[in-house]
């Protein structure tokens, strides 16, 4: 016999488990499963080791940057500068290394430094200047693109073979970039779900005012989220640099939006507070696998675009409906 009278709203709490909330949370995984099954059953050349390898390698770059974007979106923010930051890292890394393996370590540090500086700048713009994050990071996008073109106006440099392993190597049967993505995803998940910082990220995104009342330094949390985002974008930039093997000035363009799409399709609310990296990871895989399937099926690129748009719309619509009922 329970001691709670009446209120059905207390019901979810009784068991600490709400079925519909769980369905909403798992929706993207279900979609991923369905797409996988369809792929394996119906798409020629899909269920091969080579294809799995290709998908994982391609997903790694978007995956890593989307992990970072998840932090910012969870706090209720948005970061449009990640793509250009990845581009900058790609250009700087390959441009400076010029194929010299001795420079790998300095380059990694430089990339992380770029991420740190960008993240702090974005974060300060949002918390200190209190400008809308969309505007701050849109301006940062422009600034970073400017820096890229100050450094070079053309494709430069090359990656040493050791560095290329970051994108093309394997550890055991698993592609190195996939392992990196997996490792970072686990770290991010632990941070978000199992550390005070992660809890505060959710709290700030859910209600900054109330989080502040609880004594959480909301500005510092927001700032940290932008730093995490930019550092992860810088790491994604390193993987991209290894994958491209040269410094292409337009390398990162588009990742700002595709990472946001991945985060949202993965179930993180753009208003902040709800969601997490697990869904983001599933969404990245879902989107990458879908693109590969359409390629393997020989669907016209124009039609692929329509399919992509419809998938985003339907995914989000279905997801929203689930969450609303929950």
């Amino acid at each position: 016999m329970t001691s709670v009278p009446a209120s059905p709203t207390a019901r979810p709490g009784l068991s600490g488990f709400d079925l519909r909330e769980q369905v909403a949370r798992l929706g993207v995984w279900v979609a991923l499963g369905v797409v996988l099954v369809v792929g394996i059953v119906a798409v020629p050349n899909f269920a091969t080791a080579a294809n799995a390898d290709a998908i994982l390698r391609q997903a790694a770059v978007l995956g890593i940057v989307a992990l970072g974007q998840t932090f910012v979106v969870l706090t209720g923010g948005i970061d449009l500068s990640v793509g250009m930051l990845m581009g900058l890292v790609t250009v700087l890394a390959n441009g400076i290394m010029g194929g010299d393996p001795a420079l790998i370590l300095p380059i990694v540090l430089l990339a992380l430094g770029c991420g740190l500086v960008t993240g702090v700048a974005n974060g300060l713009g949002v918390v200190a200047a209190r400008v809308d994050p969309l505007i701050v990071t849109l301006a940062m996008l422009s600034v970073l693109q400017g820096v890229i073109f100050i450094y070079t106006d053309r494709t430069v440099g090359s990656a040493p073979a050791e560095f290329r392993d970051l994108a093309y190597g394997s550890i055991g049967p698993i592609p190195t970039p996939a392992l990196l993505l997996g490792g970072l995803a686990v770290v991010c998940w632990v941070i978000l779900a199992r550390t005070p910082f992660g809890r505060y990220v959710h709290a700030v995104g859910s209600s900054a005012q109330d989080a502040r009342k609880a004594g959480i330094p909301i500005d510092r949390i927001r700032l940290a989220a932008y730093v995490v985002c930019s550092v992860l974008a810088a790491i994604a930039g390193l993987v991209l640099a290894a994958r491209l093997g040269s410094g292409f000035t337009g390398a990162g363009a588009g990742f700002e939006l595709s990472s946001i799409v991945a985060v949202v399709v993965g179930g993180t609310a753009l208003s902040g507070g709800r969601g997490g990296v697990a869904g983001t990871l599933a969404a990245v895989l879902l989107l990458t696998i879908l693109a590969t399937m359409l390629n393997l099926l020989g669907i016209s690129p124009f039609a692929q675009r329509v399919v992509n748009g419809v998938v985003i719309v339907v995914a989000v619509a279905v997801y929203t409906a689930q969450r609303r009922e929950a």
Partner: protein
Amino acid sequence: MDRRIPIVGTTLVALALAAGPVAAQDASGESGQPIVIPEQYVSPEALTADTVVDTSAFAKEGPWKLCVSSGYLVNSWVVFALQHIRYQASLEPRYESEIVVTDANFDPNKQIGDITDLINQGCDAIIYWPVDDTAIEPGLEQAVAAGIPTVNVGGGYADLPGIVSNAYIDQYELGAAGALRLAEALGGQGKIVSMLPIAGTTAAVDQDKALRDVLADYPGIELLDTQNGDWNRAKAKELTETWLQRYPQIDGVFTPAGQMSAGVAEAFDEAGRLGEVRFSPGDEYNGWLKWIAAHPESNGGVVTFPPSAGGVGVQQMTRILSGEEVTKGIHVPSLWYAPEDAAALADEAAPDDWWANDLPAEFLPAS
């Protein structure tokens, strides 16, 4: 080799040049013929194009599954190049009738992924145009390693291990031809502005270099400003409006792409300053051709940027798959049309966003 004609021509002109730059009056060659430019302006890397490639590793029996990896498709030129690929492939029975096309939409990461997808679905040959030559090269290397030949069409020439052969249009040469033509039209004197494609692209980089190299030999010409019009007619027009406001006198405009030429010319026209300016040649973009037809007095003619490079790429691919010897590069020559001849290329019935072509009707882009 196709390239020999310009090189021979170049040599002749180079001899004539001994007297000085002013002597290069015929630098662009005869109207309707491949452009000819002085040897000093031939891009050095293009010379490796004559390297012979061993294609025996790629030889296989038909039918061949031909695949196309496009770096981007939101551009009428590449759409026409694609239609040339389709047409040319239809002429060779050993190609399967179905051609697989992927689109990376300017994302090199995706283009590498697309190429991997093409490898995984058993393509026998990959024709591509890159988001960026070197940035997608690792993907191409995988294809070559898997025994799948790769042919680059439309972009510049690139000498990289992942590229078996290039059907290339020399952006530097094209830029140099345009710059020389403009310099001659100005009589070596005047103030010019330069409208380039998207910053950082091979086209923008090579054309800019060509212009500056040519201007080095024409000290009487002053380059006032350079802007990136992004192959975008509206943007070119907007930038030109600002130029018109900034500079009371503009004698010439260097803009070797027809979309931008049309936008620039319109802005001058609307400002009532069409009379003061000379244009560099544009390309055979139909909107520019129509402008030429309508304004015979003020245009710079045409140096073509032929989408038929796509068809040349297929021919090159056919040789590779047959095990025939090919060169690392096959030059798709840009043709020079003087203003009075260029008007004849215009297709008044076709849209502006269209390219002069010889494709059969069924291979024209669907609309």
